């Protein structure tokens, strides 16, 4: 036990010097050890304190933090599913679930209990091993994303220097689980849904990554905390207003993210009216619940990433004041984006496959490349984020929006006269 620190520092164990440079596992240990030394031991009787196993305590504290993390985040979908149903009901002038608990607030809990007790059906003709594995891959990957999201100054699991890269990588693994689920179900609906999902996610990863790249170019870091730290001077230092190109990148990122998490209008992989439920048609009981939880966790995760990258993360609206800042501010901003997703869901109908691919390959990817070019030039002209660069950027955004509204006017929005054939 006394060799614990030495073992962690050894090149065989220490991830920080091997695969990824400088993952701060050591820092996490230091924090937990300081907690033991400064908070726990002074409160113990002396006889106990002298023999208190610091290493064991450190590990226990870390496990405790992990337990909080693992315990809290699966509760998010419980809330989000209810919110989705309530918001959907509101858009249709209904009330939504009302009977279970006050105003139906316990409805999702009741649904969860029902799903736990339902039969867990496994298709006899399918690939059993992959069928059982797929929900866990999707579930694990969608929750692993939360490890790199900073919810507050000190409320994060790990601030490693490749944070956003890690998020991109780990969320791409989800498509593996989707294909596994579709293949192993031995059902045409599932296979069609999973292949659609694969095509969609692979396509939309590109504009997503490219719009993240514009941010990374301006911040010159992949670490999530550093990205947040550059946005600490109030609302106009948020990266969405940093340059006109990040303003465009935000919308490309957000729409691509909606496509990534398979929500309407990009819900072709699980289109009810076409392919029943897509890749999770054959799943029932708790395995279905895992898919469901992962879907809503993903929804929250992409909103949280959008907030971190573009909308200031946990930094507030005014410099020095804690308005819309900290954990509550972060959650409010994230839920606002989640609401925007729900709003879009009840506004737009589902796209066709060709429209989906058109939008991605003909519009988003060229615009995203143009964005990168523009951001590069912007970075050359304004290497530092100053008052001048911010005001120029905001002015360009403002004039652009006004011009789009006034000059181009509604005539552009008119349907062009049909050409004689």
């Amino acid at each position, binding site marked *: 036990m006394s060799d614990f620190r030495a073992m962690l520092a050894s090149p065989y164990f220490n991830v920080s010097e091997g695969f990824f440079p400088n993952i701060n596992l050591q820092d996490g240990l230091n924090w937990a050890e300081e907690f033991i030394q400064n908070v726990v031991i002074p409160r113990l009787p002396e006889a106990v304190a002298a023999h208190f196993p610091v290493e064991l305590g450190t590990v226990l504290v870390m496990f405790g933090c992990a337990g909080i993390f693992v315990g809290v985040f699966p509760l998010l979908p419980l809330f989000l599913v209810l919110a989705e149903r309530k918001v959907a009901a509101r858009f*249709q*002038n209904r009330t939504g679930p*009302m009977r279970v608990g006050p105003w139906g607030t316990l409805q999702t809990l009741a649904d969860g209990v029902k799903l736990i007790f339902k039969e867990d059906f496994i298709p006899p003709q399918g690939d059993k091993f992959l069928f059982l594995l797929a929900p866990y891959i999707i579930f694990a990957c969608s929750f692993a994303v939360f490890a790199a999201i900073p919810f507050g100054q000190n409320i994060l699991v790990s601030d490693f220097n490749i944070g956003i890269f890690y998020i991109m990588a780990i969320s791409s693994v989800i498509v593996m689980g989707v294909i596994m689920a579709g293949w192993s179900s031995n059902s045409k609906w599932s296979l069609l849904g999973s292949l659609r999902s694969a095509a969609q996610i692979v396509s939309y990863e590109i504009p997503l990554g490219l719009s993240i790249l514009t941010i990374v170019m301006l911040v010159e870091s992949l670490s999530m905390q550093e990205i947040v730290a550059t946005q600490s001077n109030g609302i106009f230092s948020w990266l969405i207003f940093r340059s006109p190109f990040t303003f465009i990148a935000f919308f490309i990122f957000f729409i691509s993210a909606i496509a990534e998490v398979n929500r309407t209008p990009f819900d072709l992989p699980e289109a009810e009216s076409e392919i029943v439920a897509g890749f999770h048609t054959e799943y029932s009981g708790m395995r279905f619940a895992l898919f469901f939880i992962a879907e809503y966790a993903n929804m929250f995760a992409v909103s949280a990433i959008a907030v971190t990258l573009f909308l200031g993360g946990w930094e507030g609206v005014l410099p020095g004041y804690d308005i819309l800042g900290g954990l509550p501010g972060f959650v409010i901003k994230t839920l606002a984006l989640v609401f925007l997703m729900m709003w879009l869901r009840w*506004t737009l109908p589902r796209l066709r496959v060709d429209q989906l691919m058109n939008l991605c390959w003909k519009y988003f990817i060229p615009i995203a490349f143009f964005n990168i070019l523009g951001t590069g030039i912007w970075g050359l002209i304004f290497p530092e984020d100053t008052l001048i660069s911010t005001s120029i950027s905001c002015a360009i955004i403002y004039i652009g929006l006004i011009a789009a509204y006034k000059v181009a006017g509604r005539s552009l929005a008119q349907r062009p006269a049909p050409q004689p054939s």
Partner: protein
Amino acid sequence: MDKYIRNIYRGVYTVLVGMRVTIKQFFEPNVTHQYPYEHDYEKKRNVREIPKGYRGQLYNRMEDCIGCKKCEMICPVDCITITGTKLPKGEQLWDSMNIVHLKDGREAIGIIEGDDKKAKSEDSVTLTNITSRQGPQEVIDRLEPSGDAGRIQTFSSDEISRIVTRNPVVFYLDQFDIDMSLCMYCGLCTEVCPTECLTMKDTLAGVEYSKFDRSDLIFRFDKQEMYNKSGTEDIEAAD
């Protein structure tokens, strides 16, 4: 290139128009009613008058019921169950009496001088109050709003709305159950009722009486209700 930009512009524009439409709906009021808890008439929307003579829930005024079982016999779906016990000879719940309903809502209870069947056609009615009746004290209290025994009151025919004659009650109704889940609302029982004590409510309370349990739809009219003052208050409040 022109078409490309137009396309982007039109896409953004139409999405924004659609979003404006949906967000307007977001702030519209709900149309849902939480039905068993909440009725149309509570929200004061789409409320229609219930027509006079509507055949709603059956209600039996037990004080007037003589237990003749005509309603039980005529009911086509057998939703009425009556069990009665005759009192031993010589006992009775109360004596024969007349009730004079006045137009201002008061009631006077006593015995009319002369033939009560002719009383209505005469110019005035003379009523002798009575108290000396057998029966529970609560019933006596309720039936005597008009003062001391032996007092003689005279009412002119302008004041009187109707006169009811009650025979001596020598009969206990042990059970008078109406199963409203079986009732087909034909109204035959109310037509054969000789004392017109069995009626159908043409009020909201007679229409909206949905229950969660089917057994709650069996309405038991019994002696307890007869002695229970709050029973009549409920009905007045419901009307």
